[in-house]
C-alpha cells in the first residue's frame, strides 16, 4: 500500500480514501522501528503521538473536512527542530529530557497541512559534522542505506538515510548550516533542498550558528522536496531574520533549461569519478553553460565559515549548563564547578572542540583578526556570488568532492581534513544562497549528487533546473 508514490500521488489517494492514513502511519512507524537497530536513523520514534495525529487526520478526511496539502504524509524531523512534548536533543546528551513547550514554526505549518510527525532523526551533535559520525554521547551513528560500511553524511544524516531507505511516501525536514542538507542528500542519493537564508522561519530550531542556519526539505524527488518547502516557507513574526516574502507555489514549477554556470574551482578539487559523473549530468541536460570562477569563495569560504559558525555556536551552547532543562547532575560545589561538570559530561568531543575554537576566535585580542575579519570576508564572498549570477541563472558543482566515505576512511581524517570536505557546500551556505543536491549517478554502491545554487530568493530557478537535471538523469 502506498509504495513508490510521490507526495502528490499519495495525497490524491488519501483524499479518495484509497489509502488509510492510520494504516500507512503504522506501517512506516514499524519500518522506522525495525530498521533502526541496523541503520540508526532515528534518535526518537514518536509512535504514540504519530498515531494520535494520524487518527485525527483520518477522521477529518472521512468527514471531508481536510483541506490540507499534506494529509497523512509522514515526515521525519531532524532532532534539532523542536516538536512540542517530544524529546528534542539536537543529537546531544546535554539535552536529555528536553521536551519543548512549543512546536517550531515549520512543525506547526506542516501539522496544519495534515502531515504526521513520525520521529526525530539522527544528526551530528548540534550539527557539528560532515559525516554524521560526531554524534552525541550515547547516540548511534547512522549507516548509509546503500552500503552500511559507509556513512550517511551529515549533519542531517538520519533524515537523508531514512528518506532513501523507505519505499513508502515520506519526506524529511532537515537543517543546514554549512551543507548539512546537501551533503547527506548526496551521500544517500536523495534530494536535499536548502532555501535562501530567512525564507523558512528558524523559530524552534535549536541553534548551531544563527546567521547561517537554514531549515530545508529532503525528499525522494525534487517535486517532493519543493512541495514540503512550499508548506514550511514564509514570513514568521517570531523569527526576526525571517524574510517578508509572498508565498510561492514551489510544487507547481515546471522543469526548464536555464543557463548553468560551471564552478571551476569546485570541480577542480573533486575526485575524478565524482567530477566525471557531474559533468555527464550537465551534458545530458543539454543546457547552455558557462565556466564561472569563484576564487575567493574557494580560497576563504571554509576558513570564514568555520570561524563564524564556531563563534556563534560557542555562545549558543553556553546556556547548556544543567540549570533549567536537559542533563542535570548532583548539585555540588559552586555554580562554576557545577556548570563545568554538566558540560564536561554532556558534550562530546567535537562540540567541545568547536566551543574552544569559537571562544578563541571572539576573544579580545583575537576578535579583530578572526571573527570580525571573517564577517568582512563573508560580505566580499557574497559579492563574488552576485557577480556570477549576473552571468548565469544557476551555478553547478559536485555537492561533495567524494562519494560517501567508509567509516574506516573517516577515522583516518584529521579535523581539518574533515572540515575541508565542506568545500563545495560552504560557499552557498555562507552566502545564504538557495541550493539543492540532486542525485545524478551511482559510483558503485555510492550515489553522486550534483549541487545547483541560485541567487537569493531565486528558488524558482533552482527548482526549474533541478527538475530538468532529475529528468535528464533518470
Amino acid at each position: 500500500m502506498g509504495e513508490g508514490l510521490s507526495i502528490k500521488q499519495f495525497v490524491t489517494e488519501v483524499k479518495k480514501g484509497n489509502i488509510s492514513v492510520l494504516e500507512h502511519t503504522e506501517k512506516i512507524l514499524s519500518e522506522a522501528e525495525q530498521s533502526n537497530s541496523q541503520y540508526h536513523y532515528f534518535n526518537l520514534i514518536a509512535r504514540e503521538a504519530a498515531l494520535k495525529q494520524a487518527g485525527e487526520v483520518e477522521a477529518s478526511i472521512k468527514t471531508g473536512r481536510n483541506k490540507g496539502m499534506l494529509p497523512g504524509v509522514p515526515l521525519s524531523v531532524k532532532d534539532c527542530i523542536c516538536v512540542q512534548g517530544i524529546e528534542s536533543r539536537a543529537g546531544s546528551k546535554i539535552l536529555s529530557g528536553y521536551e519543548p513547550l512549543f512546536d517550531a514554526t515549520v512543525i506547526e505549518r506542516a501539522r496544519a497541512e495534515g502531515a504526521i510527525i513520525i520521529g526525530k532523526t539522527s544528526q551530528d551533535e548540534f550539527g557539528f559534522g560532515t559525516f554524521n559520525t560526531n554524534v552525541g554521547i550515547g547516540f548511534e551513528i547512522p549507516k548509509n542505506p546503500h552500503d552500511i560500511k559507509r556513512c550517511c553524511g551529515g549533519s542531517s544524516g538520519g533524515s537523508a538515510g531514512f528518506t532513501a531507505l523507505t519505499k513508502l511516501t515520506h519526506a524529511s525536514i532537515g537543517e543546514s548550516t554549512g551543507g548539512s542538507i546537501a551533503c547527506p542528500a548526496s551521500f544517500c542519493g536523495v534530494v536535499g533542498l536548502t532555501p535562501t537564508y530567512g525564507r523558512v522561519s528558524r523559530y524552534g530550531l535549536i541553534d548551531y550558528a544563527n546567521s547561517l542556519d537554514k531549515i530545508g526539505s529532503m525528499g525522494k524527488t525534487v517535486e517532493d522536496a519543493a512541495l514540503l518547502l512550499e508548506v514550511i516557507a514564509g514570513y514568521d513574526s517570531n523569527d526576526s531574520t525571517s524574510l517578508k516574502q509572498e508565498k510561492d507555489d514551489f510544487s507547481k514549477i515546471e522543469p526548464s533549461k536555464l543557463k548553468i554556470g560551471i564552478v571551476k574551482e569546485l570541480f577542480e578539487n573533486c575526485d575524478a569519478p565524482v567530477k566525471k559523473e557531474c559533468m555527464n549530468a550537465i551534458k545530458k541536460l543539454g543546457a547552455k553553460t558557462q565556466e564561472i570562477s569563484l576564487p575567493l569563495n574557494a580560497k576563504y569560504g571554509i576558513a570564514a565559515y568555520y570561524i563564524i559558525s564556531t563563534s556563534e555556536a560557542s555562545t549558543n551552547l553556553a546556556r547548556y549548563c544543567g540549570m533549567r532543562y536537559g542533563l542535570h547532575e548532583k548539585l555540588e560545589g559552586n555554580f562554576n564547578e557545577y556548570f563545568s561538570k554538566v558540560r564536561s559530561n554532556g558534550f562530546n568531543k567535537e562540540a567541545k572542540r568547536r566551543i574552544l575554537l569559537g571562544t578563541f576566535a571572539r576573544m579580545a585580542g583575537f576578535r579583530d583578526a578572526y571573527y570580525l575579519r571573517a564577517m568582512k570576508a563573508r560580505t566580499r564572498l557574497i559579492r563574488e556570488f552576485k557577480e556570477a549570477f549576473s552571468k548565469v541563472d544557476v551555478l553547478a558543482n559536485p555537492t561533495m568532492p567524494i562519494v560517501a566515505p567508509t567509516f574506516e576512511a573517516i577515522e583516518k581524517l584529521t579535523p581539518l581534513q574533515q572540515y575541508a570536505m565542506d568545500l563545495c557546500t560552504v560557499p552557498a551556505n555562507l552566502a545564504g544562497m538557495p541550493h539543492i543536491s540532486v542525485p545524478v549517478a551511482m559510483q558503485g554502491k555510492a550515489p553522486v549528487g550534483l549541487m545547483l545554487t541560485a541567487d537569493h530568493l531565486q528558488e524558482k530557478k533552482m527548482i526549474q533546473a533541478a527538475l530538468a537535471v532529475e529528468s535528464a538523469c533518470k
Partner: protein
Amino acid sequence: MEKNGIVIGLECHIQLNTDSKLFCGCRTQAEEPNSSCCPICLGHPGSKPVLNAKALNYALQVALALNCEVNKEFFFSRKTYFYPDMSKDFQITQYEIPVGVKGHVALSNGKRIGITRVHLEEDPAALVHEAGLGASNFSLVDYNRSGIPLVEVVTEPDLSSPQEARDFLDQLTTILSYLKVYSPSSGTLKADCNVSVYGNARVEVKNVTGKRGVEKALEFEVARQKNLLLNEREVVRETRSFDEKSMTTKATRGKETEEDYGYIFEPDLTAIRLSTAEIKKMKQRLPELHAAKSKRFMQEFNLDEYTANVLARNFTLGLLFEEIAKQVEPMIAAKFLTRELMAVVNRSGLDLNALDLSADEIASLLSLLLDRRVTEKAAKEAIIAYLTKGEKPTQFIERQGLAMDLQERDIEKAVEKVLAENKKAVADLKTGNKKSLNFLVGQVMHLTKAKAEPRLVQKIIAEKIKG
C-alpha cells in the same frame, strides 16, 4: 583633573517601564516569583528574541533627551559569560554601535556632564538568597526580571564629588520621568561607580542600587581612598561592592583584569536603521524637559528660580501647577504647592506620580483660602487628608465644618452683642489698648464657634467703634 582631585564616572542601568519585556511578550510587572516568563526569557533551546519596538523607542528618546547623537544604524551584541542569573549565559546588549553617543546633561548648578553612550539591553534574572547573601547555602532564581528592558547611560568622568553624582542622577531620573519611560516606584536604578582621587588608581564599585546608595558608596570610597593616601598607602585598581547596611565598600573576590566577554553580533536580530528625518522627527516630538520648563515658569509666571525649579523637577507637580495656575493666582498656587503640598509629600514619603491628584480640587481649596472662607490651618489639614487618605479637600472642609460660611450680617450681630456686653473693653480699646481688641475678637470667635474670619471680625469691630 578636577580642583578637588576627585574624578567620578557612572554607568547607570535603569529599568524602562514598558508593559512587556525586551524580547518577548511577558509582563514586566508580576508579584508571584517566576509567574511572568516564557521559553524566550527562560532561554529555552529553539526560542528566538523579537525586539520590543516600544522599548527601542524609549531608548531613542532617552538618547535624544540626553543630547546624544543617535546612530542611524545600530545592532545588538551578545555578551557571553556564565552566571546563574543568566538564562542563556549571554546577555543581549549593545557593544560597538549603541543607540546614542556623545551627549551631555546639565547639573542643577549648570555644570555640563558628558554622556559617553546610551544603549539598550536586557536585565538578567534575579538571584534570591532567602537567608541573606553568604548565609544561604543555596540561591533561588526569579526569572520575572529576566528580559526586562534596561537603558544603560554611561557618563564621562566629569563628576567631581559624590554630591555631583547624586545631582546627576536626580537630573537623569527627572528627564526619564518626563519622558514617561521610567517609574521611580517600580523601576530600579543601579550604577557602577568609577572613582579615583588625586590621579591615583581607578576603583569600580559595582552594582550600587538607588541614588542615595550611589552617593553613600562614593562618599565612603572617596574617604577610604583619601585615607589610604594620607597614610602613604597605595590605592589599588580593583572592583568593590557596596554593602547597604554598613554603607561601606569591600573588595570583591576574583579577577581584577578586564573580563573577556567575547562579543559577537546578535545573529537572531537584524540591524536597526533610521533615517535622518526619522531621528529629527523624534527629537521634535520630545516633551519640554525640566530645565526648559523651569525657565518658562520664571518668565511666564514671574516665579523665583528656586520655586520654578522645584515645580519643574517633578513632572506631575509641574503639570498640576500649570493647571491650577489657570484658575487661581499663580504665585499663590506655586507657594502652596512647593511649601504645603510638597511638605506633606516629603514628610509622608509619598510618590506624587502615584497619587492621581486633581488640579480642580486643589484650585477650589485655594479659592476658598483666597476668599478667606477657610483658615490657612484648615487648608493645611485638608491637603494632608487629600494626600494621605484621598479625601477631596472640599469634602473634608464640609465634613469637618471648617468652612467659614457666616454672612457678614451674622458676624455684625455677634459683634454688636459682644460690644454691648463688654463695655470696659470697648472703652479701653478706644484709648488705644490693643489687648482689648484681641479679647473682643476672641469673644466673637467664641460666639460664632470660630466660623468667622478673624480679620473680618477685626474690621467690623473697628467700624463699629468709629461709629
